[in-house]
């Protein structure tokens, strides 16, 4: 009998040890899996007549309701076989995904991606993108003048804008009960716990900085922004902010979880078609002006197909189709006239084709030096709480 007990004791000991080992294994599995996944992201697509464009979600007109989407029209017109995906959800996240590959000199699968201007600037300065085949384009002259040799791409050889837009305030008037006009309204205690902010640092901080009277077009040091970061940190600590999100702020806005949030113009305009209670405003203090630009990650093989695509979307007739659907600012000359033929009302919308009054309130960010950018990023991620 006694002996049996001993055996039982030993077994108990063993199973406990097993548990400990397993608990450790769980921890490690959680840690190493993302790294493994990131490492498996590569691969190669065939050369020649194919094209892979990885873009942001809801950023092109799809084939629906009898209309033929831009991708299908392009495929039919050019004979290129294009793969169009919407896996670009967040600049930092995407960068973290491609960094191990591009940083190690390997190529990534997409032939074309559309990072926001500042991220494109980073990729260009790291030397992780190839020059675009601009020489093969006949529609290059349609590029709006203010995007020629922009600050993030001083030689203008590496990037072409896909769409531009503004970050302002989106709100659900059923929840706010009043019109929102100013960034200061986001800090109104009446909306405690019902305010959303974007994880996109330049948009969230851009609005706050402008409301504090800081000019984001000339900002060059972190000290100028410190007070605004404190304001955001305090609002977060007070429970004013419900969440920091990427593109998924839309759901919370529609469901009424948010009274108001920082949002992107085109998103909200698209939404407004079905939900008239969702509104968008460029705040009195100013909204940010940004552009998402197409770049070719280093080592792309399908350069000819990229040239055909760029030429296609810089044709104002084709670009107007995209604008009519996504309702962002188009970087292509002559789009307004083409949109007027499809949807005259849209051609007059100051949030799609900014009038001088709206344009005067829009500012774009200065090019931050890498050290300053790192300071901004650190301060911001410290607040977003993650």
């Amino acid at each position, binding site marked *: 009998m006694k002996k049996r007990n001993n055996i*039982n*004791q030993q*077994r*108990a000991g063993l*199973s*406990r040890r097993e*548990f*400990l*080992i397993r*608990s*450790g*294994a*769980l*921890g*490690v599995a*959680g*840690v*190493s899996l*993302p*790294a493994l996944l990131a490492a498996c992201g590569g691969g190669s697509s065939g050369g020649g007549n194919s094209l892979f464009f990885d873009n942001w979600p809801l950023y092109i007109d799809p084939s629906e309701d009898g209309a033929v989407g831009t991708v299908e029209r392009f495929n039919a017109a050019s004979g290129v076989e294009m793969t169009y995906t919407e896996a670009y959800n*967040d600049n*930092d*996240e995407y*960068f*973290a*995904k491609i*960094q*191990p590959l591009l*940083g*190690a000199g390997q190529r990534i699968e997409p032939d074309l991606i559309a990072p926001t201007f500042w991220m494109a600037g*980073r990729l260009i300065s*790291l030397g992780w993108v190839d020059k675009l085949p601009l020489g093969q384009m006949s529609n290059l002259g349609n590029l709006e003048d203010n995007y020629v040799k922009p600050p993030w791409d001083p030689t203008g050889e590496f990037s072409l804008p896909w769409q531009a837009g503004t970050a302002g305030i989106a709100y659900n008037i059923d929840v706010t009960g009043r019109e929102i006009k100013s960034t200061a309204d986001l800090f109104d205690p009446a909306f*405690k*716990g*019902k305010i959303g902010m974007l994880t996109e640092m330049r948009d969230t901080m851009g609005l706050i900085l402008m409301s504090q009277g800081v000019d984001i077009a000339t900002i060059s040091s972190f000290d100028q922004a410190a007070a605004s970061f404190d304001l955001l940190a305090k609002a*977060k*600590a007070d*429970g004013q*902010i*419900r*969440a*920091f999100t990427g593109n998924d702020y839309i759901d919370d806005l529609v*469901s*009424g*979880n948010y009274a108001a949030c920082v949002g992107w113009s085109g998103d909200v305009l698209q939404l407004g078609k079905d939900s008239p209670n969702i509104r968008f405003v460029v705040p009195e203090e100013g909204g940010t002006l940004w552009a998402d630009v197409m770049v070719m990650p280093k080592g792309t093989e399908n350069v000819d197909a990229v040239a055909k695509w760029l030429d296609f979307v810089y044709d104002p007739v084709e670009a107007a189709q995209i604008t009519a659907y996504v309702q962002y600012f188009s970087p292509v000359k002559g789009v307004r006239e083409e949109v007027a033929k499809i949807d005259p009302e849209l051609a007059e919308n100051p949030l799609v084709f900014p009038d001088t009054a709206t344009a005067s309130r829009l500012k774009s960010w200065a090019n931050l030096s*890498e050290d300053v950018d*790192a300071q901004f*990023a650190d301060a911001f*991620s*410290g*607040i*977003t*709480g*993650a």
Partner: protein
Amino acid sequence: MMLAKRADGFGLGAIAVASVCLVALGAGWFDGPLNALVVLVLVSVVLGVALIAAVGGPEARRLLAPYGLMKPGLLWMALFFLAPVWSLVRISLSTKESRFSVQYDFTWAFENYTRAFSDFGGQFQRAFLYSAIATVLTIAIGYPVAYVIAFRGGRFKNILLGLVVIPFFTSYLIRTIAWSTILADQGPIVSVLRTFGLVGVFEFLQIMENGKLLNTPAAVIGGLTYNFLPFMLLPIYVSLEKIDPNLVNAAMDLYSSPTEAFRKVVFPLSMPGVFAGTLLTFIPAAGDFVNAQFLGNPNTTMIGNSIQDQFLRQNNYPVASAMSTVLMVGITALVLIYTRFFGTEELA
């Protein structure tokens, strides 16, 4: 034969050498051609043992058998546990060459750990606090249910167990996101509470904040409790199921009240289930980031969220690794303490 007599020594040595080889390969100790050498050593050691077993006769095989049986498990652990832990700890003590570099220099950078504590102390506390509360709640909810199923379930036992498990056939993520719809400000629960004027009561109990249920600490803890309930309920059920009802009858014959019978007989005998359930719930819950991500707010983030953010958005592998190491050590320490006090020796 000398060889045959020393077979167990060879077996032990072979396992040790093979484990080290696998860790070296997995953790990337060497570059290029040296790796081929390591593979060569690994293969020759394994073949060597097989050779000894083949030519050494029954005596050698008898001595080698235990090591042979241990080998798959041990080598698996070497490659998939020891090697990753090695890499993790190494990166946690490294610094990046530059902000966007993918190279890490091992520099005994203990400041990563300082940063893990100073910048993410709150997240560590919340992770342990929320998962501890969730664990207690899963016991409070899971134990009575398991008890009823085990002792009063009768012929419906299997159906009842099935009902517990069926929701978990759906993806973890979907279930959690579903809660954000259910708890939403205009959702069913808050609407009912508002209709009955109970919002004030719930706010007093600190379950609601500002008239909202979603994006509060309560929602995060609730989500954890919901998601880990079966991991508590099933082990408790198994240990209750095994209890011989005659033991309870015997206690009653000895003038025990039902309460006393439960306290002195049933509950102690169900402890192994509670113990196993606690480990299965607390450990993954402490590292969870899904619930805090979808049901929490910026002030309820847990350490899992921070680790995810540092790894996948900030690209700060050294600090992220330091946080993971601290989490691992922290959980191990807590489990050891727990085992010391509750994991009694009569567990079998």
